[in-house]
């Protein structure tokens, strides 16, 4: 079964005043284990599509299925819970909880899932090691660089053991070496642990690393290209 499937997804902002067709009839399918990049010019609807898939916004028409479950009509409180269990988020502006340390930021997500406390801490440490921040566990966000914060955000997104991770321009605020480093981590997790990533980007080097590139133009899918070796030019 497809992990994510959108069915004729459309979104019109301001339908009554100045309608903006942000999405037009988008039908895409994402399978487990994919490393998919959504690209396209500014305003082409990338963020809108990710928000729909993440259940952060409701479509004007069409449907979104996650693992076969239709989330389009789900109630808000149920949706929050569904997101917590199924989807990990990485935002452009890191968005960690500023008063929590790296470790606390990660275990907080697991706390929301009511996990066992011991398991929470050991898993947080393990994830921080994986993103290469084993020595920054007790640092607060403002004591870390943008790249480090974004790596914590990836670790946090993984902590809840989601089915897939949505990342809207995760590298947009990073310098290029931090961006590549983040991407290395993401693609390694994708390869080694089969974590599914869907991310949007403008950055050509990031696009080059994707194994599937969905190009949006004017709210519609313009091309959908699979590149088997896309993920393999990782330099280490």
């Amino acid at each position: 079964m497809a992990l994510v499937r959108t069915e004729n997804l459309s979104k019109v902002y301001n339908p009554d005043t100045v309608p903006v067709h942000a999405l037009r009839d988008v039908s895409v399918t994402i399978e487990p284990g994919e490393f998919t990049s959504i690209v396209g010019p500014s305003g082409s609807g990338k963020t809108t599509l990710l928000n729909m898939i993440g259940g952060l916004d409701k479509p004007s028409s069409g449907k979104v299925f996650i693992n076969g479950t239709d989330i389009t009509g789900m109630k808000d409180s149920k949706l929050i819970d569904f997101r917590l269990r199924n989807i990990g988020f990485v935002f452009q502006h890191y968005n960690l909880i500023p008063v929590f340390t790296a470790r606390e930021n990660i275990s907080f997500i697991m706390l929301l899932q009511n996990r066992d406390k011991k398991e929470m801490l050991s898993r947080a440490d393990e994830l921080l090691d994986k993103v290469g921040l084993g020595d920054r566990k007790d640092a607060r966000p403002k004591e870390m660089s943008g790249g480090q914060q974004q790596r914590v955000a990836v670790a946090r997104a993984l902590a809840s053991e989601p089915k897939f991770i949505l990342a809207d321009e995760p590298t947009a605020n990073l310098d290029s070496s931090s961006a590549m480093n983040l991407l290395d981590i993401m693609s390694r997790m994708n390869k080694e642990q089969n974590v599914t990533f869907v991310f949007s980007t403008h950055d050509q080097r990031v696009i080059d690393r994707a194994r599937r590139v969905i190009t949006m133009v004017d709210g519609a899918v313009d091309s959908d290209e699979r590149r088997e070796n896309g993920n393999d030019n990782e330099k280490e």
Partner: protein
Amino acid sequence: MLTYFKLAWRNIWRNRRRTLITVSAIVFAVIAAVFMQSMNRGSHEMMLDNMVRFSTGYVQLQDYRYDDESSLDNSFYYDSSVRDRVLDADPNIDMILPRIETFMLAANGAATRGSILLGIDPEKEHRFNELENRLSKGRFIERDDAAVMLGEGLAERLQLTVGDTLVLIGRGRFGMSASGLYEIAGIVEFPIRDLNNQVVLLPLPEAQYLLSADDYITSLLIAPRSDRHTGSVAQSLNEAFADEELVAYTWAELLPELLELFEFDLAVPRLLTVVLYIVIGFGFFGTILTMTLERLREFGVLLSVGMKRGKLALVVFLETLFISIIGVLTGVVASWLIIYYFHRNPVELTGDAAQAVVDMGWDPILPMSFAADQFYTQGFFVFAIAMIVFLFPLLKIVKLNILEAARS
């Protein structure tokens, strides 16, 4: 749960400046509310204190008929055995002051004025209300003197002064005629206008002799060790003298009109207090509004990563609770210190205001009440206002649109 406490606690210290602004708003609100209350109550307390100390006493023992008809015919027998029984009635009795009181005409030969003759034990009175400190001219009478002290107002009206002779004319017990000539030993300045304009003080034995009422008094003033014993002392006395024709009253029972007047007098201050609360409420609202709007994005992120609205609301509620508690406690301590200072060192009035107050018979100061309850009631009110206003961010969280918040 602990994590939410931790999150809330750290959140309030994340933006120290913002927290300090909110806390100081609460602190000032408490100080303003207590200050206003204290000023409103201060003058009443002073009046009451004067009334109690110079007029009624905390508890008064009377013949049960005296309340209806305040005449010498309703005086009661008082000797050392009655005194001992009174003192034995309650261990919290500190002091007792026998008085005989009646209406008499006071004259200087040409002019005549109605006056209140008070037969007192001068030394005991002084211990109870520091009467000697109120002496403005002459000397303080002694127990075996046959001389009087006059209220300053009465002396002025009769144009008499120390060394002159006062004529007293009236009726003694059971219709005996009573009249006497007394040397004026001193002039006393009473802090109650009615007393100041009417009172003639005579040592008790001489007064009893003049009124043909040897061993009789009209009232026995009783001072408890502390004013909080007032009620229980009155009750003990009523039990001890249940079989006799004596009744004990508390000052509140003796001064109902005054208490009513205070109630009436409080109407305007109450209204002002409500206005103050509204101002406080709007002040809080402004602070909390900016605070909430600044944090919408943060709230949006927390909701999008899977925090339930209820949990987020709990964290924000805890934050406001912490801030309110810190603010109110600090405010109560600060106002306690400020009021303590002004209670001990009252602001002295000058000019017209001072004259107006002196004309009323009071001291020219701005008395501040130091009653304990005003600190916690005002603290509680401000706390309640803060908690009500702080519901606003909670409402906002419940209604928050995640995407709009994350974009802001």
